[in-house]
């Protein structure tokens, strides 16, 4: 099915069989016949097939997404536009959104990832916002033969390294040239992502509140302008075939369906669009992403309640002999469609000309609600715009929990109390998911635009100042697929909680979130159960933490050879700092500072050894060292998370903290070590009191906790504020300039080693892994 479109000509008569080849079910095809009152021609069929594809229509997810909270006073634009928009004060708004480019990145890692970045950047600047940051959430199969690789062959780990290398190269290639800093992200590895890596790109932009632009066409007679790259035959059916179907052995043959990116052209497009918006002659604008000319035209018309007419003979073409079917379905990159005010199109065209770009009038807004496509003077397609967009099919797909309960496999065998854990700790630090990501982020320009206050790894979230104001924004992406597989609702809530905790650790108020929901085949009831549970988990956590969802993306069909990925919702949480000078990083700052463990759960009840063992079995530690993914993730304590966040904001607001770092992957031991590694030669000799076994105490990943440091003279004040917010506060010791990093649990040293040696294990691992 990979290349059938090459054989299509305009005269071909559409049959139910051809409709099926286009991915339309018999019911959907019947619906097409009913809407049109006749048989579609091949162009119309192509248009229906892409617009009703899972990727464009969200037909399986929309009924669930309604359960997400999307309203809050700061929300200017919720889901449904190119990007979500929130007010950040001083007359400014932040526009941000996350999107997946998973399948293309497996087929062609470099271009797949590059065009993923390009697409999300366009989504942001079409809103009138200048992009100021990109983050990426990446998931790959194992890249080493550590126990966590679950016996992956040398060939497979080499292939996964090739994918990782290509994806990172593609993100760098696009972002660096475009001139947007790639400031953060997260990377995880699990066997399930081997043949289905995840590449989720998030872009953030800043716009003036009174200069936002929307993709809502209006004004019959207004001209429709086409700007940017010429249309070619690339990417045809990218949305319907690549993104909306499972992978098979033949997937590599889909390489022609992957688009090729040109970040230089996109940079010109950015400058030209922002300049053209300034002159006030643009009515509506939308980028040509998935389903290109088709989606941009009919979605703008549908949102604006108008019709649209396109004359394909005027569309700039890169190749000769293209037919309407190909032009309407092409996913050539770096193109935009905009509606200008009639009479002012000259001004718009001149701005684009200044940047060396053509802006061509290819159609006009019409009264009514028809999308009409003309070619060679004849009608090539005529479909009600709403039928393609807002009235696309909606499915309440069957849902069924897994037949066998998950997490009932072999649990981690806890080591006897008193066992020295230093060796295990050093191995955990070298596990690629835990190890320093410097090899990756050094390839990204993370400083251009000179707003980056916290470089990758320097704080729990990227922190960007907002020039000409005192404000800063914090941004993070989080998601734990392993936990979501074991317990979807809990795991998804944990992702929201972690994102919120991360931005709060930098001193920022969690302000809004975007999500990228990566799942398997929605036609499998078990996958739909995972999806529905995860949506509920996100909704629970967003409500409890008062974080509105302003948009996102659903990526289904992440299956290869019948095997689904871990359900992987990725949350991008945006935080707002009203005073940028309050921003806090993770690095210890000063010798003799007090190291404190803040715990939202308050003075905790005793943890049973059995539940500690189950929790630890779901941890990064269990995966990395023993290849175990079992038990259940730690219960999410949303009330505790809320208390911790509020306490962190009070503490950073009073500038009492010198550092703050939340406890997540790798547990307390890794968190504490990172505070040392990020510092200039400081280390820690920590003492913790625990009710659970020592191994669980140092490597367990229960949330609602953070390690902070403060000047000794602030200690009493910090403890007092912690008590005001009813959070636990334990004094772990002092920051030292010694040589050893050490942790004692209930008076017994379980970890002790030269800090430099541990740092080297952590710092050099990914680089040496990637060197092969």
């Amino acid at each position, binding site marked *: 099915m990979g290349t059938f479109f090459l054989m299509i000509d305009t005269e071909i008569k559409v049959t139910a069989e051809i409709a099926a080849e286009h991915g339309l079910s018999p019911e959907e095809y019947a619906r097409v016949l009913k809407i049109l009152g006749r048989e579609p021609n091949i162009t119309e069929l192509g248009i229906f097939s892409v617009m009703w594809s899972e990727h464009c229509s969200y037909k399986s997810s929309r009924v669930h997404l309604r359960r997400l909270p999307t309203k809050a006073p700061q929300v200017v634009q919720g889901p449904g536009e190119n990007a979500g928009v929130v007010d950040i004060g001083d007359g400014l708004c932040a526009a941000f959104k996350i999107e997946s480019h998973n399948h293309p990145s497996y087929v062609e890692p470099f271009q797949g990832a590059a065009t993923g970045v390009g697409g999300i950047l366009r989504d942001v600047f079409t809103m009138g916002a200048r992009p100021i940051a990109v983050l990426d959430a990446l998931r790959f199969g194992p890249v080493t033969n550590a126990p966590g690789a679950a016996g992956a062959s040398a060939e497979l780990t080499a292939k996964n390294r090739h994918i990782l290398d290509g994806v990172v190269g593609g993100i760098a290639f696009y972002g660096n040239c475009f001139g947007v800093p790639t400031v953060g992200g997260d990377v995880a590895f699990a066997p399930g992502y081997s043949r289905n890596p995840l590449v989720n790109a998030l872009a953030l932009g800043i716009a003036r509140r009174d200069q936002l632009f929307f993709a809502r066409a209006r004004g019959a007679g207004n001209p429709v302008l086409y700007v940017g790259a010429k249309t070619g035959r690339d990417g045809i059916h990218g949305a319907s075939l690549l993104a909306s179907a499972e992978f098979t052995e033949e997937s590599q043959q889909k390489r022609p369906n992957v688009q090729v990116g040109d970040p230089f052209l996109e*940079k010109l497009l950015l400058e030209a669009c922002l300049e053209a918006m300034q002159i006030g002659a643009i009515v509506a604008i939308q980028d040509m992403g998935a389903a290109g000319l088709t989606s941009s035209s009919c979605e703008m018309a549908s949102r604006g309640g108008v019709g649209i007419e396109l004359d394909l003979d005027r569309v700039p073409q890169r190749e000769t002999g293209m037919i309407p079917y190909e032009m309407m379905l092409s996913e050539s990159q770096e193109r935009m469609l905009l509606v200008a005010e009639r009479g002012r199109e000259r001004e718009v065209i001149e701005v684009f000309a200044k940047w060396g770009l053509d802006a061509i009038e290819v159609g006009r807004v019409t009264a009514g609600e028809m999308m009409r496509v003309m070619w060679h003077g004849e009608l090539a397609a005529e479909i009600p715009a709403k039928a393609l967009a807002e009235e696309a099919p909606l499915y309440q797909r069957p849902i069924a929990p897994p037949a066998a309960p998950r997490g009932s496999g072999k649990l981690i065998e806890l080591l006897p109390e008193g066992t020295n854990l230093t060796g295990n700790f050093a191995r955990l630090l070298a596990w690629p998911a835990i190890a320093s990501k410097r090899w990756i982020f050094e390839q990204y*320009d993370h400083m251009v635009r000179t707003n980056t206050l916290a470089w990758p790894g320097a704080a729990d979230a990227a922190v960007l100042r907002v020039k000409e104001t005192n404000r800063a924004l914090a941004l993070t992406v989080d998601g734990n697929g392993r936990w979501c597989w074991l317990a979807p609702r809990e795991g998804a809530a944990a992702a929201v909680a972690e994102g919120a905790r991360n931005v709060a650790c930098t001193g920022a108020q969690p302000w809004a979130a975007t999500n990228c929901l990566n799942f398997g085949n929605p036609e499998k009831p078990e996958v739909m159960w995972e999806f529905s549970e995860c949506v509920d988990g996100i909704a629970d956590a967003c409500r409890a933490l008062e974080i509105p969802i302003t948009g996102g993306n659903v990526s289904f069909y992440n299956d290869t050879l019948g095997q689904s990925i871990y359900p992987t919702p990725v949350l991008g949480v945006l935080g707002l700092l009203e005073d940028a000078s309050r921003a806090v990083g993770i690095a210890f700052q000063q010798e003799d500072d007090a190291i404190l463990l803040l715990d939202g759960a308050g003075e905790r009840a005793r943890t049973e050894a059995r539940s500690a063992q189950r929790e630890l079995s779901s941890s990064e530690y269990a995966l990395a060292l023993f290849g175990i993914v079992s038990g259940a993730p730690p219960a999410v304590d949303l009330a505790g998370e809320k208390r911790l966040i509020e306490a962190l904001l009070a503490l950073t607001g009073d500038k009492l903290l010198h550092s703050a770092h939340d406890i997540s992957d790798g547990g307390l031991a890794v968190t504490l070590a990172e505070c040392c590694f990020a510092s200039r030669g400081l280390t820690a000799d920590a003492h913790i009191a625990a009710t659970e076994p020592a191994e669980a105490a140092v490597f367990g990943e229960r949330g609602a906790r953070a390690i902070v440091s403060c000047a000794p003279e602030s200690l009493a004040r910090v403890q007092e504020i912690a008590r005001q917010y009813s959070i636990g506060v334990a004094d772990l010791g002092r920051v030292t300039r010694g040589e050893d990093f050490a942790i004692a649990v209930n008076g017994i040293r379980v970890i002790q080693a030269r800090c430099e040696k541990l740092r080297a294990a952590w710092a050099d691992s990914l680089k040496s892994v990637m060197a092969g």
Partner: protein
Amino acid sequence: MKFGVVVFPGSNCDDDTHYVISNVLGQQVEFLWHQSEDLHRADAVILPGGFAFGDYLRIGAIARFSPVMRAVEKFARAGGIVLGICNGFQILLEAGLLPGAMLRNAGLRFRCLPVHIRVEAVDTPFTCAARRGQVLEIPIAHNEGNYFCDAETLAALEGSNQILFRYTTPDGHEDAAANPNGSLANIAGICNRERNVAGLMPHPERASEASLGSADGLVIFKSVAEWFARNGGIARHNGENAAALQAR
């Protein structure tokens, strides 16, 4: 004085450079569009970082033929102060205003990280406010910063003290580990024989405010302003030419 910051299609550090000059240094600054030969009476011209013309064909190969570069070349030949940062340095090499060429980084990867550079000469408009031997922490962000020239040119650069910055350790030692890109003789920046045109790979505009991690780079912009205050923009020996240019 007035700075001019050239904007090529694909320049992406133009705003950052403009921001530092106007908001941190507090000097006048104007953008100079690539299609114009008018330098708007700028006293110093900066070619900023980025990917001019997408770095297509060969870095700087298209940019050097821009109308603005004809004006920059005249300005430079007349003794005007011209500074190329990163991509701007690459363009100056390509335009023949500075000697040598750039190769891909030794590791064949784009690298973005703070590095340390030692100031080697302070008798230029770009370094006069610094101390000789002073070590500056300034980030790099490039794919092709591996400076190369033939032995004769290197000897000439060294002989006439044209190497302005070298990659070193934080305490000023030149060693291979401190060299982020394989650059010949740890060269991070050079000037021409007349000392009025310079280029460097690190981005001083990214290290001009303490909140961004380092303010060490500001000394380069300060130097230009101080030099101008003392000597005027166009070197005296070229007085006539300069007067003609200023009159335009």
